[in-house]
């Protein structure tokens, strides 16, 4: 059977998109529609599952199967669907409040179980749909309607949380890095297991410019480290800056003419990933984007179905009459 050929518009639903004009979600939606159309999979095999929040309106705009569920609970719905229909390509959409605050418990258990689905976390570091309260990724001291004197809370680092919870695939992209985002979406889809993609997303109403310090075209090259497996960890004008190991810490150096002393990116190296996710652009450090960590291990849905198959192979298809006529039985 030949793979179906789709255009982006085949993945656009007939519903009016209702995000604020200028929202970063528009770009993400466009890239997702483009990438899903390109994967060569029948459209009916895609299911988009979301929680609650601005980002979670996403399924309504995709011409696929979609389920807009409960605040924070999308991982549980997606798990139930994926173990039931392992042949589906399940894409989960969530935000920083949805995934990391009300849904934190479900997210870490999703990572631990390694259910084979793709998680897109739109991180805008603010609550948008409820009109501008600080979120679990807002910086300490953030002044909002609910924190007029500044937020008291240390923010989560979503990628560090994912690594700590045992995620098998940890990556990051940015709403306005359109080509990079498409590449990361397509790459996430190839991973068997929970693919976690954090997407920095600008909320131009309640937290405008949260990421412009490294996403603006003028500074982007100087501040962003594009992670490429097998390539040296270098960035900046003419790739002059690089990361080396200084004891057990990363250090930024001027590369000079010889890149051989610079660390080479290896997404299978958990220790390196742990150091890379800690880089936040402060001081002379870059903001890394791309694939931080990837590990091949059994998926929950695969193992779940394997147990069913094993039970049927060992015990045959269960007969109801035998199930009932068992235990402490007698005849009168």
């Amino acid at each position, binding site marked *: 059977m030949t793979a179906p050929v789709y255009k982006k518009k085949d993945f656009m*639903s007939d*519903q009016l998109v209702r995000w604020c004009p200028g929202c970063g979600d528009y770009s993400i939606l466009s890239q997702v529609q483009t990438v899903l159309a390109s994967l060569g999979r*029948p*459209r*009916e*095999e895609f*299911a988009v*599952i979301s929680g*609650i929040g601005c980002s979670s309106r996403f*399924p*309504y705009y*995709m*011409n*696929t*199967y*979609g*389920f*807009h*569920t*409960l605040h924070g*609970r999308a*991982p*549980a*719905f*997606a*798990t*139930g*669907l*994926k*173990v*039931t*229909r392992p*042949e*589906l390509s399940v894409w989960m959409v969530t935000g920083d409040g949805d995934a990391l605050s009300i849904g934190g*418990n*479900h997210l870490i*258990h999703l990572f631990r179980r390694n259910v084979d689905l793709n998680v897109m976390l739109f991180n805008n570091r603010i609550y948008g749909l409820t009109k501008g309260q600080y979120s679990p990724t807002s910086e300490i001291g953030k002044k909002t309607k609910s924190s007029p004197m500044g937020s008291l809370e240390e923010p989560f680092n979503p990628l560090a949380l994912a690594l700590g919870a045992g995620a098998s695939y940890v990556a990051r992209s940015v709403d306005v890095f359109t080509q990079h985002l498409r590449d990361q979406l397509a790459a996430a889809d190839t991973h068997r297991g929970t693919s976690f993609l954090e997407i920095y997303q600008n909320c131009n109403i309640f937290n405008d410019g949260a990421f412009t310090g490294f996403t603006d075209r003028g500074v982007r090259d100087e501040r962003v480290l594009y992670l490429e497996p097998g390539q040296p960890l270098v960035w900046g004008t003419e790739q002059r800056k690089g990361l080396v190991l200084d004891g057990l810490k990363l250090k930024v150096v001027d590369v000079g003419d010889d890149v051989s002393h610079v660390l080479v990116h290896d997404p299978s190296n958990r220790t390196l990933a742990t150091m890379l996710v800690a880089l936040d652009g402060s001081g002379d450090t870059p903001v890394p984007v791309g694939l931080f960590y990837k590990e091949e291990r059994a998926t929950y849905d695969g193992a*779940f179905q394997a*147990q*069913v198959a094993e*039970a*049927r192979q*060992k*015990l*045959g*298809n*269960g007969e*109801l*009459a035998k*199930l*009932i*006529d*068992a*235990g*402490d*039985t*007698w*005849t*009168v």
Partner: protein
Amino acid sequence: MTQSAANVVIRFAGDSGDGMQLVGGQFTRTTALAGNDLATLPDFPAEIRAPAGTREGVSGFQIHFASHDIFTPGDETDALVAMNAAALVTNLPRLRAGGLVIVNSDGFSAGDLTKARLQTSPLEDDTLAGYRSVPTPITTLTRNAVEELGLSTKEADRCKNFFALGMVYWVYGRDLAPTEAWLTAKFSKKPVVLQANLNALRAGRNYAQTIELFQDTWEVPKADFAPGRYRNITGNTALAIGLAAAAQKTGQTLFYGSYPITPASDILHALAPFKHYGVTTFQAEDEIAAVCAAIGASYGGNIGVTGTSGPGVALKGEAIGLAVMAELPLVVICVQRGGPSTGLPTKTEQADLLQALYGRNGEAPVAVIAPSSPSDCFRTAIEAVKFAVEAMVPCFILSDGYIGNGAEPWPLPDLDALPDITPAFRTDPEGFLPYERDPETLSRPWAIPGTPGMEHRIGGLEKEDGTGNVSYDPKNHQHMCEVRAAKVQKLQRFIPPTAIHGDDEGVLVVGWGGTWGAIRSGVDACRKEGLKVAQIHLRNLNPLPADLGDILKRYDRVLVPELNLGQLVKVLRDAYLVDARSFCKIQGQPFLTREIADAIRQEAAR
């Protein structure tokens, strides 16, 4: 000499680590195989091992068995086995005057008495006057019986429950063989432990026979069961088997999402090995994930089921509302326990009726069915799946700790007579609308991901009828609220006419759920006295049976006994403007027959 008795109630009581539930289960099994009708009441503390020897740590197991139909585990006990001082003093009040009490006299040391908060030993004061007591050094005799096997004292003492069981078996003329066979299977890989327990069991029986302290032994003739095949079963097991049967009836996999909670965990344990029957189980990270995963599975075309107790239902409320809105099938099992909050985890109660009916935000109607006995759980499970699938709606099963853990003989059902369950799967994309309703059932099609040409979106936002698009239209919202309620109401088509037991005038006793047996016994007792009394027992709480209003109006008095502070009574008054009176008990224990009978007499005399 052997005497004949029509019915006997025995209670085994000891520390929660003494294995009383185990020997109670063995006695139940043997009794079922001997052909008696029976009902059981496990009664244990929430702590796995409460401090040994204390009153709080006492674990009891009561069994009522008879040569005739019985409906309850019995009010008073005829015989008590007490393994220590605390077990004796906490259970003696339920022993009838002149009843038999087998006491482990090794459980009355000074330390045991202190832990039981006793000044003097009940073996030495007049506590046991008026009973036939048989003090027996059960611990010592058990150690002697297993001495040759070289066990540690601790290991030897673990067999003393079987010594006690052996004694009871002799008193009631029971065959040791079923228990010997069970022990042999259980300890096939531990021959020393097997031999020790067999020694203890046989030594107990022989000791009882030898000492001639028992003036009489008792025989309870076989009950007059209808011919057929029977199985001794608890409510939780019957629910699990019923769910597996429903899976086979629909031809779909049944997905059970659950988080461990007393007293519902046994359903998860029972279903987990049923993979080859088309049942999958998912132990979730919490109650919310359990129900959400079940809804996700229903979205994918499985029969989504979640099981819990009252505290779990409180957590699942928002998700159940989503299943109402998304119009997906979902079965929610609530094995009720004492509440509120953590309450009395191992004790029974019926206080989650209003939570099941109304415990969600917004107008969120669901179907509610309550099994009336352990074996009735089988039929209830199939009905609940049928309701959920055919109306695309959540359906509650309101069981309780008493019928969940209690056992009774179950006449094995005729599998060909089970109701058909017909899911409304839609695969034809021509003219497909996600919320297009069947005009008869008002149910929407079940279109599962993976079906070509029917991609659509659902969710918790209000839907436009037909298209399923998000809608804020005021009139559409009212229409949708009304149609979701009407859809549930239409399930009345599956409810048979209400059975009336008893007279057609006088006091009508209306119950629901696990109180059926006690109410039946109380009603029959009053009718024997000449009172005009009738019983109806509701299995369907939403929708209610179509004929209920007419029946209620035919009686002068309506009495509603419940193990809560009056919940069904509110529903009946609301639905039918009937002057129903409430009779409430909320002590973590089932009704006694005489409590129901007293309430009927008072109502009749009012």
